Structures are given as structure tokens and as C-alpha cells.
């Protein structure tokens, strides 16, 4: 009999039976969450079902992050629905300024071996800690709130073996953009993407989160990394060391596809409008001399302390180009405080950046940097669909925090390696 993948093991533990890829099962949920864009619909569904309750209040989280602080009354009213639901059910409310749901989840809730569902597509981020974490709709998560379980199809796994040393100026963001550029925006639809190999083992948790965050951009159900010492140290730092456990795929497990990538020849990589798989190397992009009106450093993809350090190092002593705006948003209050203590915010402000409070910021398309017609933005976020940032007549380019910082200085897509 074949061994099991990590995904099959975790889902099996939560379904209370042996499972294999392709089966549809009912599984217990450890952590369930919604955000202010999806949560009000979940509350409405529960009301319609006459089940306005939560199964496990401590692990039920309502994040206010997409439209915070609220830019308009309709959204304030949406927030109010979640505030009232929290009071009524005991579900935790992560309020204005606490940060982006996925960053807050990895800081305070997500742990190896858990099954996590969230009404947000980037819920897969927590998979870097060895959880099975996946995005669903408002109704699915509403039912998970009330019943403590969901229906799931057990996914096949695509395994990505990553080796080689990153050249200077090249980061995990460049790797995941390159992978998606190679396999396509539907290259892993419905699959679990599992990332292993020496390059992953040496990578910090921050860099790992960037990779699993973007699994959905290849269509995947989740992105996963087997827990190791790096995971253990991270959990200890976050005060959840007792939650560490090992879980990994058996060597004789069946993988639908096996990929190998070597990062030693990788260049900084940029996704061009309007799909994430439309990637080019920085060398190609630079030649095209693309003027950029706005740069955004932040989000659940790249708004962590390591990202801000990289960007600050490049921006220190430099000024943002006169025709370009730079917006910096730490992904969480914890990241904000750390950046403050390390003097990074001072560097950003002196360079000419606008710093906003933790949350999703302009990535969502409603506030804090909506683009004008014909404008171009280079952002560290995870997707660049037409209209994503609030204006279908604008163009979104995606890159690493280093590429973003260099671009802010030059006012056009720039190579961060020129600043190292």
C-alpha cells in the first residue's frame, strides 16, 4: 500500500479515517475565519439557517482588515455586523489596526497539522507552518463556524523540490513568481502544492509565507511546507512552541506531479498585467523602460519584518522619485512595532514614503492608494488582475520588496541588484 501525502494525513486525522486523493470527506475544522469583505455574508447565511452560533469561539476569528479604518458608511456598517456577531457568539474580533488576517493567523493561531478554513483565498498562507489551510466562500465558512466541520475533496499533491542558493537581490517572491510563470495561473488548480528541498529548509518562516501565500495564484487548494526546526523556532517566538509537531509526506506517497527548481540562476522576477503568470525577468523588464506612478510595499504576501528590512536597506539615504508615490504598510501591529523599534519607519518616511496603518491597504481596490486612469503600480502583493486595485484602466506589476524599493527610487521598473 502506498504511503500518504501530508495533505492526506492531515485531512485523514480530521475526517477520522484513512483518506486518499480524490475522495470527498467531511472533516473537523481547527480554526475558521472570515474577513470584513466576506464575513457579513457568512453572518447573513447563519441567520437564515437559524444557527447564529459558533462551535469553537476561541478558534473562530473575524478579521477587520480589508477596509480599515473604514473609508465609507456601508463598510462601517459591515464592520458593525461582525462586531455584533462577535459579542453575541464569543468569536474573536481582530479589530482595526491589528493587521491582515493571514499575517495575524500565522502569528497567533496557525500550527502544524491543523485544518484551517478561511473566507479569503490567501488562507493557504498558513500552510507554511505545516497546516492544511484553504480558502472557501462565505457560506462554507459560515457552516464551519456553526458545525465545526466542512466538506472537502482530498487534493492530489504536486511536489516542488527547490535547490540552490539565492543570488543576492533574489528572494522567495521571485521564486514563487517564477514558478507560477512556469506552470501557469491554473497550473495547480485544485491541487496541494508541497514545497521541499534544501533551499526551503534554509529559508526563514517569513520567506516561506510568501511562497505558500501565492499557491492560490497557481489555482492550488493549498501550499504546504513540512514543519522543521525553523518552524519550531518561529512558533516558540510567537509563544506557541508547545504546538510544534512533525508531519510530512511519506517517501512512498503518490505525487501527481514532481517539479524541480534551482534558484541559483534565478533573477528578480516581475509579473506584468493582467495575470500573475505573465512573468518577465528584471533584465527584460528594465529594457522596456516602464514608468511607475505608485509603489506599494506591504500585504499578506510581503508586508513582514524581513520584507521591510530589505526595502529599508535599499531606500536608506535615497529619495523616492519625484513622479512616483511610495506607500508602505506593515502587515500587522506586531510588524509595525518591530519596524518602529528598528528605525525602519524613519528610513521610509525620510525617503518620502506614506505609511499607513496595518491592513490590506490598496491591494483591495477601495482606499489608501486607488490608481488613476492609465497609471501603473508596482506592488509586492500577490495578484494583478484587471481592476484589482480599484481601477480597470490601471496596470499592476508584481515584484519583491527589493524590486519595489529600487523602482520607487528610479520611478521606473528597476533592478534591486544595482543597490546591493
Amino acid at each position, binding site marked *: 500500500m502506498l504511503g500518504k501525502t501530508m495533505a492526506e494525513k492531515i485531512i485523514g486525522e480530521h475526517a477520522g479515517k484513512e483518506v486518499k486523493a480524490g475522495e470527498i470527506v467531511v472533516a473537523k475544522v481547527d480554526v475558521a475565519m472570515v474577513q470584513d*469583505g466576506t464575513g*457579513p455574508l457568512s453572518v447573513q447565511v447563519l441567520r437564515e439557517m437559524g444557527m447564529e452560533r459558533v462551535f469553537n469561539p476561541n478558534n473562530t476569528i473575524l478579521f477587520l482588515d480589508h477596509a480599515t479604518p473604514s473609508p465609507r458608511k456601508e463598510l462601517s456598517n459591515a464592520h458593525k455586523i461582525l462586531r455584533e456577531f462577535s459579542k453575541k457568539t464569543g468569536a474573536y474580533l481582530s479589530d482595526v489596526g491589528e493587521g491582515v488576517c493571514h499575517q495575524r493567523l500565522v502569528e497567533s493561531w496557525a500550527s502544524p497539522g491543523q485544518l484551517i478554513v478561511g473566507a479569503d483565498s490567501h488562507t493557504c498562507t498558513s500552510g507554511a507552518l505545516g497546516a492544511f489551510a484553504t480558502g472557501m466562500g462565505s457560506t462554507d465558512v459560515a*457552516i464551519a463556524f456553526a458545525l465545526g466541520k466542512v466538506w472537502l475533496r482530498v487534493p492530489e499533491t504536486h511536489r516542488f523540490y527547490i535547490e540552490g542558493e539565492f543570488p543576492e537581490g533574489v528572494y522567495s517572491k521571485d521564486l514563487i513568481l517564477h514558478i507560477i510563470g512556469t506552470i501557469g495561473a491554473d497550473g495547480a488548480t485544485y491541487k496541494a502544492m508541497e514545497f521541499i528541498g534544501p533551499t526551503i529548509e534554509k529559508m526563514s518562516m517569513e520567506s516561506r509565507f510568501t511562497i505558500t501565500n501565492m499557491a492560490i495564484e497557481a489555482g492550488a487548494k493549498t501550499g504546504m511546507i513540512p514543519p522543521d526546526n525553523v518552524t519550531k523556532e518561529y512558533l516558540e517566538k510567537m509563544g506557541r512552541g508547545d504546538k510544534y509537531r512533525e508531519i510530512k509526506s511519506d517517501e512512498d506517497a503518490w505525487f501527481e506531479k514532481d517539479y524541480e527548481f534551482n534558484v541559483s540562476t534565478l533573477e528578480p522576477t516581475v509579473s506584468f498585467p493582467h495575470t500573475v503568470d505573465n512573468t518577465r525577468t528584471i533584465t527584460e523588464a528594465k529594457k522596456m523602460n516602464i514608468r511607475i506612478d505608485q509603489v506599494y510595499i506591504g500585504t499578506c504576501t510581503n508586508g513582514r519584518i524581513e520584507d521591510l528590512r530589505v526595502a529599508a536597506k535599499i531606500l536608506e539615504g535615497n529619495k523616492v522619485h519625484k513622479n512616483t508615490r511610495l506607500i508602505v504598510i506593515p502587515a500587522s501591529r506586531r510588524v509595525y512595532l518591530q519596524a518602529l523599534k528598528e528605525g525602519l519607519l524613519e528610513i521610509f518616511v525620510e525617503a518620502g514614503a506614506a505609511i499607513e496603518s496595518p491592513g490590506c491597504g490598496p491591494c483591495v481596490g477601495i482606499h489608501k492608494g486607488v490608481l488613476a486612469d492609465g497609471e501603473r503600480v508596482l506592488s509586492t502583493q500577490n*495578484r494583478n*488582475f484587471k481592476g484589482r486595485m480599484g481601477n480597470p484602466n490601471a496596470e499592476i506589476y508584481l515584484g519583491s520588496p527589493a524590486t519595489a524599493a529600487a523602482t520607487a527610487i528610479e520611478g521606473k521598473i528597476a533592478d534591486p541588484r544595482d543597490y546591493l
Partner: protein
Amino acid sequence: MEKIIKGRVWKFGDNISTDHIAPGRYFHLRTNLPELAKHVLEDADPEFPKKVKPGDIIAAGNNFGLGSSREHAPRIIKLAGVSCVIAKSFARIFYRNAFNIGLPLLIADTDKIDEGDELEIDLEKGLIKDLTKGITIESTPIPPFMMRLLEDGGIVEHIMKHGDFKVD
């Protein structure tokens, strides 16, 4: 659930994202679905929300519904009156959300279907008759559990009817 669907086609290309379907700039309308539905798919075809009629069918290319988890996307497609979406492939969260709210999806080769064609779809048999072209296209069978969700009227009705998930 209607097992035979008849309607007129709106044709879309590959990679129609949830931002095309329910643009982020209308984020504040997510608690007002009838208003949000007035903008459905407007970033892919500005005429669509103005001219879509009850019973119309969407035929699209690969990876329809990619992007965000917003269930508002299939909900406003259904609210606009669309009876079925056919695509070469669907993004997973959209696929799940659509069946959960009782919007039928079929996976089939849509290359021969053009905008304005009249279709007659047999959901159970998975057969798509293009009455305009006089051809029949086979679709990938809908998995039994997804078919049950459609028959029950969506996941909420499924839970209310069975008192729990019924996956076997």
C-alpha cells in the same frame, strides 16, 4: 432544480477573474447584492450587466472565476438570471462556491460555441446542444455530490434537509 436548461449564450475568454465579475471598487456593495449585481462582469463586457436576461448562459475559456474567495461572484451571476456557466475549466473556490449556492457549472470545450447561440443543456446527461449550430457537445460529468447539492438547492438547503453533510 431544472434539469433541462435553455438559453442564449454570452461568450467570454480565458482567465475571467472574480475582479472582472465583482470588481473591488464595489466592495461597499457586498452587503447589497442586488446593487452589486448591476455591475456583474462589467470589467469583462460593459454591456453584459445591462443586457443579460433571465435564463442566459455564459460560455467561457479556461480558469473561469480565478482569484478571490468572494462568493458574491457566483451569487451575482445567479442573481442576474444566468442559468448555467460552461467553461473549459474553473478555478476551484469559484467552482465550490457556485454549487454551494445552486448555480450549475459544466466543464466542456466551448470553442465551437459563439455569442448569441441558443443552447439546450441536459444537466444530468451532461449534454450541450447548440441549437444554432446543430451540434452536440459532451461535458465532463458533474460529480455525484455536486449534483446532490444542485438538487437540494445549495449547501444551506442540503444541511437543512439532511441535518448534516451527506457525502456518501
